[in-house]
């Protein structure tokens, strides 16, 4: 018997309904098993983020998932009623978006934003508060951050606040959409470490999106390569990437070699 994968994306196509149904993502299919760490790489604008948004349900009109299925634990997210879908969000699938600078609400304190997250994870009262403290501790943020507003925190700290949210929610699937965009190398390292902690503690399956093969190598065991809206290759990162790979993959590895990373 073959176990159903946690997340099955089948033939996902995303179109721009405002621009004569231009296809931005075409026929993307992949599976994510529980506990798996899967990378998703590709050049800017190849549809990585759109794929993530489709999975989390954060696609903005006029962009729509026009065909395909996204099955989470066997149930199609795209046809699910909104109320049920909302229950899946957060504890089922959670996404750390790129640009931490704008991902936190600027006029709500960190405490408010973390505490409302506990509500989505059905934690209330003292238990909720305790969960917040624990999460802060795990991502090594001081408690005084709680009473601050996001713009008093650095980019790396903001990203760690997002990690703390993930720790509170303990999602079945954690999607990290270029979580290190705009961070310097040291902060990037810290963020990846925090992400590692989160993944270990929650046991989530991880979909790690990046355009940087170097950090995907550090985080994931296998990687999907996207190019111009299509999924072109799946590579096992434990083995060297073969010369006969797809040109898009070759381009990324080639660039890495030139930069001697």
């Amino acid at each position, binding site marked *: 018997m073959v176990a159903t994968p946690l997340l099955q994306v089948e033939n996902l196509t995303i179109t721009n309904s405002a621009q004569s149904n231009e296809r931005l993502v075409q026929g993307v299919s992949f599976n994510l098993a529980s506990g798996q760490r899967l990378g998703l790489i590709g050049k800017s604008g190849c549809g990585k983020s759109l794929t993530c948004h489709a999975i989390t349900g*954060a696609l903005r009109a006029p962009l729509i998932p026009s065909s395909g299925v996204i099955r989470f634990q066997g149930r199609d997210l795209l046809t699910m009623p909104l109320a049920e879908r909302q229950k899946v969000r957060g504890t089922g699938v*959670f996404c750390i978006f790129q640009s931490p600078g704008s991902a936190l609400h600027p006029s709500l304190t960190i405490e408010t934003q973390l505490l409302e997250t506990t509500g989505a994870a059905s934690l209330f009262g003292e238990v909720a508060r305790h969960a917040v403290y624990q999460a802060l501790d795990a991502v090594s943020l001081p408690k005084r951050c709680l009473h601050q507003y996001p713009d008093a925190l*650095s980019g790396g700290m903001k990203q760690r606040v997002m990690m703390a949210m993930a720790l509170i929610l303990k999602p079945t699937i954690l999607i990290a959409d270029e979580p290190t965009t705009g961070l310097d190398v040291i902060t990037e390292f810290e963020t990846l470490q925090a992400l590692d902690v989160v993944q270990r503690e929650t046991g989530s399956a991880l979909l790690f999106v990046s355009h940087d093969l170097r950090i995907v190598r550090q985080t994931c065991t296998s990687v999907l390569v996207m190019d111009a809206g299509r999924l072109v290759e799946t590579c096992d990162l434990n083995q060297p990437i073969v010369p006969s790979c797809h040109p898009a993959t070759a381009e990324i590895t080639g660039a890495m070699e030139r930069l001697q990373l």
Partner: protein
Amino acid sequence: MICAPFTKDKQMKQFVFTRTFSGIPTLFGMTLIGFLIIGLTPGDPIEMELRRLGVAFSAEQVEALRVEYGLNKPLIQRYFLWLFDLFRLDLGTSIASGRPVLELFKEHLPITATLSVLAFMSSLALSLGLGGVTAVSQRTSLSTGLYVLTMFLVSVPSFWLALFLLAVFALGLGWFKLLQFGNPQDLILPTITLSLGHSAVMSRLVRERIIAVMSEDYIRLAIAKGLTRRAILGRHVFKSILPPLITNWAISFGSLLGGSVIVENIFNLPGLGQMALQAIAERDFAILQAYLLFMGLVFFLANFVADLMNHWLTPQIKKGDNGLR
């Protein structure tokens, strides 16, 4: 939990202090310019008043009255005399009616104030509702219908709307009395007239703001966190749309007061607007000058309150915040 305790007490005091003191020269400048413009307008108030009364008068009589009202002095001197009186809370005497301006204000202000506040409150509620519905129900027939309605209300002048409402509800249905003031319900049609146009304009703003905020990254995170629609709209979206709207509302409160001039005249309400319009016709300087000062004060206070609220609502932009950077 939702609202941060207000800890920047000292900063707040400083803000209030600087705003008050920068407002005073502005008000003075405004009254000076207003005084000069009114003073340089052709037409002598004494002669006009005497003609209106239909009395025969000689040049000497006019001159004597001019001396009595202080109109023979140079304009600048008259301004400073007016200022001096202002500090003693004496706004002068109306030439046309011979009554103190302050007394006339006390008589006419309540109607205008009630009308403006009612119209302001109802347009706040209406614009938030209309804007919210049209923003959330984008690309549906409901939203298109409301769009057409608001565009219509934005384009229609208030005097037309006033006459239309009078024709339908007073003449046609007989729900209201025509051109008569005495009961509180006589304020209903004027309030609707004044607030409909305003709420249409404001609802467009609310809609734009909601749509803009909805596409922010932090709203996407709020959705991904699994927050309820109510929490997202009620907390995250509402808190973000408010600051620019508050500034707009403050300005619109001032223009509601100004707009009430037309509405008061059509509905024959003895408010400040009607008083001011009559004062223009009669070159009644003292009233006009007081009206100008009053409008300036209202604009100043409305903006002051708006800034104060924004200051309180967006704690993150307070200067000198001791961050953790």
